[in-house]
C-alpha cells in the first residue's frame, strides 16, 4: 500500500513538471540548491573530522539541531509542506491511520528536501569514520535524526491545522503558531549571532552545543560523538531522549490526524446580529466604497491577510538582529523605512486572494479605476496607521525624535509608492494563494518561477521609484540634517501621492482590459 502511494507521488511530480516548463526550471533550481548545500556540508564535515573530537561533536550536534529546526520552520517561509500526500486525499482509501502516516513520512523522505537531508546526514560518516563505536551508533542514530526531522515537520503542521474545534479557534491558533514560528527564526539568528560574537570573545562554542545536545532537536545527532569520547551514560540517555521525541511526535501527529480525518472543518456558530454591516455601513454606497469596505473587512478578519501584517513588526526586529542588537545605531532608527517598503507592497497581487470570488467583482461591471482605488484604500487604511505606530515606537526606543519627519516622510512615501506599484501589478498578475481558512503550512501548488520573478520586479520598481524620498531620509538619519528630514517628508508625501494616483489610473486601464484573463487564470488554480 505504501509503495503504491509513493508511486502515485512520483507520478504526480512527473506530471506537474512535464506540464509546465517554468515549474521544471524552479524544480531544477531547487535541486541545484540542495546539491550545493550538500557539497558545502560534506566538505565542512570532512575538515571538521580532521580536527579535535570535541569540536567535531559540537559541530555535528549544532548542524543537526539547525537542520531539525529548519524542517519545522522552513515550510512557513519557503513553500509550505508538499501536500501531494494530503491526509484528506488519502482518507477515502482503505488504510489505517498508521499506514497513512508511514506513507506520508516515506513521501517526505523521498522528496528533494528529504533526500538532501538523508544524504547530508550520511555525510556525518565522514566524521565518525575514524571512530568505530561512533560509526556503529550512527547507523542507528542518523536514520533516527532524519526521521525526527520529517515527522516533526508533519506533526507540527497537522497540530497547527487541527487543534481546536471551530473554524475561528483553528484560525486563531494557526495565526499564533505562525507568528511564533516567524519570530522563532529571527530569535534563532540572534542567538547564533550572539554565539558567534561570544565565541570570538573566548566562550566555548562546545559548551553551548553540549546544552543543545540534551534537547529533543539535538539529541539524536549527539549520540555517536558521546560514544566516541567514551561517555556511555550520557550517550545512552541522549539516545533515549531522541527515541522518546520521535515517539511523542508520532503519537501527537496520530492524534491530530485521526481527529482531522474524522471531523474536518467544524462549522462555527459565531454570528453577528442582523443589521450589523461592519465597514459596509460606514463607507459610501459607491463601487469604490463597496470595494474599500470589502478589502478592509478582509484585512481585519481574513487570516491570510492578517498573516501578511505580521511583516510590519517583523521588519524592525530583523534590522535589530542584523545590526547585532545595536538600538542606538542609525540602522534601527531607520527601520521604519523597511516597514514602509514591506507595507506598500503587501497587496501586490491583491486579486489573488479573491480567488474565483473575483467573478462577483466582474459581474458588477466595476470600472478598473474604482476597483484599484478601493483595494488600495483598504490596504492603506490598515497599513498606514500600523506603519506610523512602528515609526513612533522604533524612534522612541532609539531616542531619535529629531528624525520623525525624515522617517515618517520616507516610510509613508515608500508605502504610497508601493501601493501605486501594487495597483498596477495586481491588475496584471495573480498567484496561487491558500484558500481562506487553509493552514498556513500548506503549500499551494501552481506557483511558477516567473511569478517569483514578477514579485522581485515589483520590489525593484518600488525601490527605484522611492529613491527621491529615501535618499533625503537616509541623509537625515546618517548626518542628522534637519532640512534633509523635512525634504524627505515633503517629497515622500507629494511624490508618493503622485505615484499612487498614477498607479490607480494605469492599473485601472490594465484592469479594464485584463480582468477576464485574471479570472480565467484564477480558475486554473486548484482550490481557488
Amino acid at each position, binding site marked *: 500500500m505504501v509503495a503504491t502511494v509513493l508511486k502515485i507521488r512520483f507520478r504526480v511530480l512527473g506530471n506537474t513538471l512535464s506540464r509546465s516548463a517554468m515549474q521544471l526550471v524552479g524544480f531544477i533550481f531547487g535541486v541545484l540548491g540542495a546539491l550545493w548545500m550538500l557539497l558545502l556540508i560534506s566538505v565542512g564535515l570532512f575538515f571538521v573530522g580532521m580536527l579535535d573530537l570535541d569540536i567535531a561533536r559540537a559541530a555535528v550536534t549544532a548542524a543537526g539541531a539547525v537542520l531539525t529546526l529548519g524542517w519545522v520552520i522552513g515550510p512557513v517561509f519557503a513553500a509550505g509542506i508538499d501536500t501531494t500526500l494530503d491526509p484528506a486525499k488519502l482518507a477515502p482509501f482503505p488504510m489505517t491511520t498508521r499506514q497513512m502516516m508511514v506513507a506520508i513520512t516515506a513521501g517526505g523522505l523521498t522528496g528533494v528536501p528529504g533526500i538532501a537531508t538523508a544524504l547530508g546526514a550520511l555525510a556525518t560518516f565522514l566524521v565518525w569514520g575514524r571512530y568505530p563505536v561512533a560509526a556503529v551508533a550512527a547507523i542507528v542514530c542518523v536514520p533516527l535524526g532524519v526521521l525526527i526531522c520529517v515527522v516533526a515537520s508533519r506533526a507540527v503542521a497537522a497540530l497547527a491545522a487541527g487543534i481546536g474545534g471551530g473554524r475561528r479557534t483553528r484560525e486563531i491558533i494557526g495565526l499564533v503558531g505562525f507568528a511564533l514560528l516567524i519570530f522563532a527564526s529571527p530569535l534563532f539568528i540572534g542567538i547564533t549571532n550572539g554565539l558567534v560574537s561570544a565565541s570570538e570573545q573566548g566562550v566555548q562554542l562546545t559548551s553551548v552545543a553540549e546544552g543543545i545536545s540534551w534537547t529533543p532537536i539535538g539529541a539524536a545527532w549527539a549520540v555517536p560523538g558521546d560514544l566516541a569520547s567514551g561517555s556511555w551514560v550520557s550517550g545512552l540517555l541522549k539516545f533515549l531522549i531522541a527515541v522518546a521525541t520521535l515517539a511523542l511526535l508520532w503519537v501527537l501527529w496520530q492524534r491530530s490526524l485521526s481527529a482531522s480525518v474524522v471531523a474536518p472543518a467544524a462549522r462555527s456558530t459565531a454570528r*453577528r446580529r442582523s443589521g450589523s*454591516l461592519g465597514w459596509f455601513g460606514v463607507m459610501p454606497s459607491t*463601487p469604490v*466604497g463597496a470595494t474599500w*469596505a470589502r478589502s478592509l473587512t478582509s484585512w481585519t478578519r481574513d487570516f491570510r491577510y492578517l498573516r501578511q501584517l505580521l511583516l510590519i513588526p517583523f521588519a524592525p526586529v530583523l534590522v535589530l538582529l542584523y545590526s547585532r542588537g545595536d538600538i542606538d545605531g542609525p540602522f534601527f532608527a531607520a527601520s521604519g523605512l523597511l516597514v514602509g517598503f514591506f507595507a506598500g507592497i503587501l497587496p501586490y497581487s491583491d486579486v489573488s486572494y479573491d480567488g474565483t*470570488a473575483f467573478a462577483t467583482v*466582474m459581474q*458588477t*461591471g466595476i470600472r478598473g479605476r474604482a476597483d484599484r482605488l478601493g483595494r488600495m484604500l483598504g490596504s492603506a487604511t490598515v497599513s498606514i496607521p500600523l506603519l506610523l505606530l512602528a515609526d513612533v515606537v522604533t524612534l522612541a526606543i532609539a531616542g531619535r525624535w529629531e528624525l520623525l519627519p525624515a522617517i515618517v516622510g520616507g516610510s509613508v512615501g515608500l508605502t504610497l509608492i508601493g501601493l501605486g506599484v501594487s495597483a498596477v501589478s495586481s491588475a496584471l498578475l495573480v498567484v496561487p494563494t491558500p484558500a481562506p481558512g487553509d493552514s498556513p503550512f500548506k503549500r499551494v501548488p501552481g506557483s511558477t518561477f516567473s511569478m517569483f520573478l514578477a514579485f522581485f520586479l515589483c520590489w525593484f520598481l518600488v525601490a527605484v521609484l522611492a529613491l527621491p524620498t529615501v535618499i533625503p531620509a537616509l541623509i537625515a538619519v546618517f548626518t542628522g540634517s534637519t532640512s534633509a528630514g523635512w525634504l524627505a517628508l515633503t517629497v515622500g508625501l507629494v511624490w508618493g501621492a503622485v505615484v499612487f494616483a498614477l498607479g490607480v489610473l494605469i492599473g485601472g486601464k490594465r484592469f479594464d482590459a485584463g480582468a477576464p484573463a485574471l479570472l480565467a487564470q484564477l480558475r486554473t488554480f486548484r482550490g481557488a
Partner: protein
Amino acid sequence: MTDIPRDVPPPSALPEAVTPPASTDSLPAMQLTGLVKRFGEKVAVAGLDLTVPTGSFYGLVGPNGAGKTTTLSMATGLLRPDGGTARIHGVDVWTQPVEAKKLIGNLADGVRLFDRLTGEQLVTYTGMMFGLSRDEVATRTADLLRIMDLGEAAGTPVVDYSAGMTKKVALACALVHAPRLLVLDEPFESVDPVSAANIEDILRGYTASGGTVIVSSHSMDLVQRMCDHVAVIAQGRLLASGTVDEVRGTQTLQDRFVELVGGRHHAEGPQWLRQS
C-alpha cells in the same frame, strides 16, 4: 437604454424592489452570434448562435463538458470569447461591458463567493457595487433575505452556510440591482425541494413581469416543467433550440435529449459489480 419605464405592476411573489424594469424594445434579451472559445487544442464552444427572446424562461441543457458554463461566461462578460459577439438587449457585452453588466444578474457556477462576509454584508456589498443608494440597498437586502428564507442566517458568515443556502444568497446577489436578464448556471443544484419551489415562484413572477431568465441545468424534468424555451448544446454546438414543445415533439424532453446527444448505454454494468 437608459429611459426604461417602471410602470409594470409587480407580481405577488416578487417584492417591488427587485421587479425588473419592463422592456419596450423588441430586441432579444440575449443574442449570441458565432461565439467561439478554444482552450489550447480543445474547442469548447464552436461558433454558437443563440437568441433568447425577452420575457422567456429559457433552459440551456447539455451533457457534462458541453460548453454551457463557457457559453454563459462569455455571454455575461466573465470570459473573453475568441470570436463572435454577445448582446444583451442590444448592448454589446465586450465593447460596452459596464452598461451590459448592469442589465445582467448572474449566478455563476463553480466560483466562490466572498464567503467571509455575512449573508447580509454580501448582498449589501453587491448592491453598493452597482451604486444603489444606501436606503435602496437596505430595503432590497432585507426583502431578498426574507424571500430566500435567509433572515435567520443574515448575520452568519457565508462560509458557514450549507450548499443550498449559499446558492440562495448568490441568487439574492444576482437580483439586488433589479436586472432585466437573469443568467443562472445550475441554480437548483443542492437546493432543498422547499427552497427550490420558493425560488421557482420568484423566477416565475420575475418573467411574468417582463424579466428574462436563462437557466442551465442537468435536470430535464425540471427544464420541461419550468421553462418555455430550451436549447440543447453538445460539444460546443447548438443541436436544437426553440420552445420546449417544438424541441421535444411528442417525446419527453429526457428522451429527445438522449436522442440528440447520444451516448446512452443499455448494459447492466460489469459482471464483478453485480451483487448476486
